[in-house]
């Protein structure tokens, strides 16, 4: 405990150097700027802004990413409230009451409760991450390859089968991602798989190309085809930005409850901030003293989901940093950013690169503060960004999207893949196939395969290693139950 505090203070001494503080500031500004654009979620924002960090040292780059990550989320909630176009599924619950508040001329307090709620829940969640991460690291150090493999299977199950509207479509998306993951040189034997003699494919498919293709190109194709001739109605910000005494009184408990709901969801590898946001919405609706306001713009209905989103996203840093397991598309893109710097998150990271880890954790606190003091006063600028006409907006998004994909390896092959993934993203969006499992499958699949083969190498090829180790066996058993039980229940109910 005292040790953790000392390490964190050391982290602050790294994060608070003027240069690193500057990168955090730049990250928050750019993250908000891009995150505000309609249809652009945090995963895409991080992927598009990745090339900007090439010149930075790893610590500076990660601090900038932390800023981008937080900025993108805040920017996204601004758009959600004013335009009612949630950039990601985790913002849908915020949109429900938030847009109604804006329609009733209460956009200011809605934005304020989001910003302050994000700060409160983000800070509490960051404290919890700081306390929890070293504990998880202690446990994780005892894990062998079999346990890692089991944890990854668990993450696969939750992100694809448990979350979302359809088990079969989630799993299809996951296996498409896993298939893309085996393209290239096999890390264990050096033989090439599914590269079709294209040298650029030997290094595998980059997560950034897939994420940008699915999220940016796919989205642009979809919106152009189905929503480019609609009248968009942006709610204006009328009256005061400030929350009244009453608003404060109603927001506080919602923020705290939402943090308690969101953080555990994020920190176990269960993935997705969607469930906790809806859970928080339901809880607030149940507990409110003003049930008649729900459906007309109740402030608790904005404060809760937004805080739950933030707490869950911050909590997701626990499995990402300590185990190297991403549980959302955004975390998958962050993991790929780590890998570009030759950093592999996991328990060893805390020992080998303590400066980097604690600098990053400290910068999360700073990012939260920067967001609070920068964004509310600057909300006028973000609203201007929102009023860019759609043709120019999407022209710009695609220019930055292709830049993000092309500047990785200066390769036309990446641009061709980007367009193909865009077509795939269009199909998935139109026929309701979730895209996040594909992104997570692509980055986590090769890691899972490596762990499985390591485990089998140790056991001399005996596959029972996964079920004779008690931890691995229980995690695999739990994944199996999560996957199969809902299906059986559905089958039984039909009869």
């Amino acid at each position, binding site marked *: 405990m005292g040790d953790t505090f000392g390490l964190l203070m050391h982290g602050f001494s790294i994060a608070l150097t003027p240069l690193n503080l500057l990168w955090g500031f730049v990250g928050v500004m750019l993250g908000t700027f891009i995150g505000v654009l309609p249809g652009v979620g945090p995963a895409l924002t991080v992927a598009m802004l990745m090339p900007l960090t090439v010149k930075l040292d790893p610590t500076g780059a990660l601090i900038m990413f932390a800023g981008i990550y937080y900025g993108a989320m805040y920017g996204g909630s601004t758009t959600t409230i004013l335009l009612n176009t949630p950039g990601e599924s985790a913002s849908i619950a915020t949109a429900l009451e938030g847009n109604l508040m804006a329609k009733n001329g209460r956009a200011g307090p809605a934005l304020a409760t989001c910003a302050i709620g994000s700060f409160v829940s983000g800070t509490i969640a960051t404290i919890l991450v700081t306390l929890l991460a070293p504990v998880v690291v202690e446990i994780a150090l005892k894990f062998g390859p079999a346990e890692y493999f089991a944890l990854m299977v668990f993450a696969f199950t939750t992100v694809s089968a448990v979350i979302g509207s359809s088990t079969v479509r989630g799993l299809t998306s996951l296996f498409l991602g896993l*298939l893309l993951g085996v393209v290239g040189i096999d890390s264990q034997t050096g033989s090439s798989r599914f590269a079709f003699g294209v040298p650029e494919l030997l290094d595998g498919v980059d997560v950034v190309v897939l994420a940008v293709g699915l999220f940016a190109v796919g989205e642009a194709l979809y919106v152009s085809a189905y929503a480019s001739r609609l009248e968009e109605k942006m709610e204006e910000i009328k009256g005061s930005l400030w929350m009244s005494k009453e608003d404060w009184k109603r927001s506080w408990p919602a923020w705290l409850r939402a943090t308690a709901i969101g953080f555990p969801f994020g920190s176990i590898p269960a993935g997705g901030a969607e469930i906790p946001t809806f859970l928080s919405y339901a809880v607030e609706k149940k507990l409110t003293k003003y049930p008649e306001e729900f459906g007309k713009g109740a402030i608790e209905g904005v404060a809760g989901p937004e805080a739950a989103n933030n707490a869950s996203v911050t909590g997701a840093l626990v499995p990402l940093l300590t185990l190297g397991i991403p549980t959302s598309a955004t975390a998958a893109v962050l993991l790929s950013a780590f890998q570009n710097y030759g950093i592999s998150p996991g328990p060893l990271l805390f020992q080998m690169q303590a400066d980097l880890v604690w600098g990053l954790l400290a910068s999360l606190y700073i990012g939260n503060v920067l967001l609070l003091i920068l964004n509310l006063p600057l909300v006028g600028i973000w609203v201007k960004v929102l009023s860019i006409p759609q043709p*120019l907006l999407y022209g710009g998004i695609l220019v930055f999207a292709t830049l993000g994909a092309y500047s990785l390896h200066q390769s036309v092959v990446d641009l061709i893949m980007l367009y193909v993934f865009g077509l795939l993203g269009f199909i998935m969006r139109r026929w309701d196939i979730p895209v996040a499992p594909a992104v997570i499958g692509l980055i986590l699949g090769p890691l899972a395969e490596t762990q499985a083969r390591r485990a089998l190498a140790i056991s001399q090829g005996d596959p029972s290693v996964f079920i004779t180790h008690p931890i691995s066996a229980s995690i695999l058993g739990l994944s199996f139950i999560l996957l199969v039980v809902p299906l059986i229940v559905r089958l039984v109910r039909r009869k």
Partner: protein
Amino acid sequence: MKAKPAELILALSVVILGIAVALGTSQLSGAGGYAKVGPNVAPAVIAGALILLGIWLLYEALSGGWRNAIADDPKARGEHRFHGSAFIWVSLGLILQIVLIDRAGFVLAQAALFALVARGFGSVKLPRDFAIGLLLGLSVFLFFVKFLNVNLPAGWLKPLLGGAGI
């Protein structure tokens, strides 16, 4: 209720993809060393899973349609009917960019992309959009090449850009 053609086609595509992966897997080495699991095992598992998932999707398509999917009628989704020309303009922009980037260079390719995407989204001011795209591409190019030291192709504009880029 009649099965929807799109769902049938997509489900069949997943099955066919699975079969193609299975065929490709049979070309891979099975040598696995101590682990007795070679580079062909993961692709084989993926191939099997895709075939099964495709059959599952096919079953859902034939028995009342995919479950819990979004509405087929764009109006019910708050959108307008499929606008084919918009889709084609955006696609053309992306394809033209792929063709141009190594020849004409980054700046011109991005200007073309920007103008065609804007056209797809309903803008009728093509010269203006091209000019904005040119400006945007140029500023990105200079920022990346001069400041971040990331090389981008200068292409036809090489004489104008003073040797910057590749």
